[in-house]
């Protein structure tokens, strides 16, 4: 398996975003869907489990950076790494709690257990009125205070784009590292037959949890890059919006679940479909996404890259992981 194609893609996108800041918002939007697909893929693609409360991880990342910026703007530039670290940590913690409980369960039961995660955490934040409650965190003035006006705007524009791309890049690296290591073989065995894998001495919960927490930390970074850094706000109704898991699943399934390049192809196609639908039929984007996801899952379950890989000679297949 050679991960160079997806890595070079992300690196060149990062270079464009950095040196041509006028395009960075556009690139950030495109790569956001690719990176979301990558992050979802690390869990769903590698384990064959599906988490419907996945957006809660993005929300944790968003709240991590949001809370640090909102309550401690006097930290200055240290607020950024600290906030990102807190966001990732909270995502991983939530994944450890949810996964530690629910990943002991099989397939459908796991999916059932995750249905409530995003709603549950959202209602806790709104209901118990923590972190700004239902009103959310508005960060504009705090970010100006912490970073200075110009830098804050640069960070919101270019910085968030670079962070989104970096997340996609890290997701590819993580996927590569998992797949070439023992964990990759263990996960493949679990996906095919969990009982047989168990008999062979593999601890399924451990490896599923590894993939789950890796995926969650990347989702947390995406949430932090998109809401508090890019939009300078964190509203519970936005960050817990269930649509993003739909987007992530659509990107992953269009490209090919379990493949490394799949989410890049899927993300690029997906953004085209979304843009065209947004132009021709504004307001129908989610409807079309749901329709596309449903038809892809039923008619092309391997996705584009997955199907392509079946027909490629082994030498070329190496290059299209």
């Amino acid at each position, binding site marked *: 398996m050679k991960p160079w194609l997806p890595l070079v893609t992300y690196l060149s996108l990062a270079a464009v975003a950095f040196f041509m800041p006028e395009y960075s918002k556009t690139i950030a939007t495109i790569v956001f869907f690719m990176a979301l697909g990558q992050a979802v893929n690390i869990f769903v693609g590698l384990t064959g489990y599906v988490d419907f409360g996945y957006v809660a991880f993005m929300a944790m990342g968003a709240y991590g950076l949001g809370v640090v910026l909102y309550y401690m703007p006097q930290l200055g530039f240290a607020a950024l790494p600290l906030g990102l670290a807190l966001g990732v940590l909270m995502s991983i913690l939530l994944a450890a709690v949810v996964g530690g409980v629910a990943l002991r369960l099989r397939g*459908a039961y796991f*999916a059932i257990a995750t249905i*409530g995660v995003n*709603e549950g955490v959202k209602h806790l934040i709104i209901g118990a009125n923590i972190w700004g409650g239902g009103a959310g965190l508005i960060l504009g003035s705090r970010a100006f205070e912490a970073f200075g006006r110009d830098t804050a705007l640069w960070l919101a524009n270019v910085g968030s784009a670079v962070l989104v791309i970096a997340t996609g890049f890290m997701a590819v690296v993580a996927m590569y590292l998992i797949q070439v290591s023992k964990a990759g073989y263990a996960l493949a065995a679990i996906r095919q037959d969990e009982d047989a894998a168990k008999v062979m001495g593999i601890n399924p919960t451990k490896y599923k949890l590894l993939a789950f927490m890796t995926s969650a930390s990347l989702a947390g970074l995406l949430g932090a890059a998109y809401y508090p850094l890019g939009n300078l706000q964190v509203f519970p109704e936005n960050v817990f919006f269930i649509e993003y898991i739909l987007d992530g*699943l659509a990107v992953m399934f269009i490209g090919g679940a379990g493949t490394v390049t799949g989410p890049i192809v899927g993300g690029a196609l997906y953004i085209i479909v979304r843009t065209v639908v947004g132009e021709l039929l504004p307001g129908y984007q989610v409807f079309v996404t749901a329709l596309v996801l449903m038809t892809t899952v039923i008619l092309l379950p391997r996705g584009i890259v997955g199907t392509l890989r079946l027909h490629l000679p082994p030498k070329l297949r190496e290059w299209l992981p």
Partner: protein
Amino acid sequence: MDFFSQISPFLLSGLLLGSIYGLSATGLSLIFGVLKVANIAHGAFIMLGAYVAYFALTMWGVVPFVSAILALALGGALGYLVYVAVVKPLGLKNELNILVALFALFLLMAEAARILWGPDFVGYTWTIGSFSLGGLIIEYTKLAGALLALAIVISLEVFLRKTYAGRAIRAVVQDSVGAQVVGINVDRVYALAAAVGIGITTLAGVFITLFIPVGINPYMGGPYTLMGFVIAVLGGLGSIMGAYLAGLVFGLITSVGYFAFSELGFAEPSQMALFIAFLMLLLILLFKPTGLLRI
């Protein structure tokens, strides 16, 4: 006595609403029992039923107890379609793809409702009076809805026990291969279970509107999916009576929880009730995944 008179309205409303919750979860439980498929789109059919009740009353003046029959037929037809178009082509073994397809169906239906009927909350008022019981005011519509829900669950149970089709369904729940060996058309049983399960879910959506007079909205289904699974799991997935009883328990818990949180006054009670629901789901799945009624 003071405490009792304070809490008893909550207990009663919890039981009445719990009866409807129980009815809605029986559909979910039946589908899981037979097809081993978690109907993630559950809430969308509740939403559909709610709109059926709304349009039937406001456009044709048809009262909810009559439009419930319409909802049952509509939901049944859609359930059959879901089986034929989604579940069957994927094959029951392909769990991930079925779950994702049903999830997409949930959002597809919600979006279709938003596009067709608008994003706003709508509702209706339909009252046929109320009576007072020891100081508690009970609306006839709610009481009738709760009793009808019980009657429907009992008839479903009778159907499953006394008719050939019902017995075939139960045979498939116990052992689908064994059922096939003795000559049961398993494919038809799957289709029947999907139709009956989703039909009952849609019907329950009609009844739910009796309790939320102005809460009908394209995206209202999400919390009902969550609550439906909490109840179905609590009752033991696959058990009809279990789901109904768990619905009563769940109604009581959320209602008393609402009372407790509004007394404590530190949190928004309705939001916290949903958080409790989510916590319950995790805890039951962890400690008692077979549900209350099974050992």
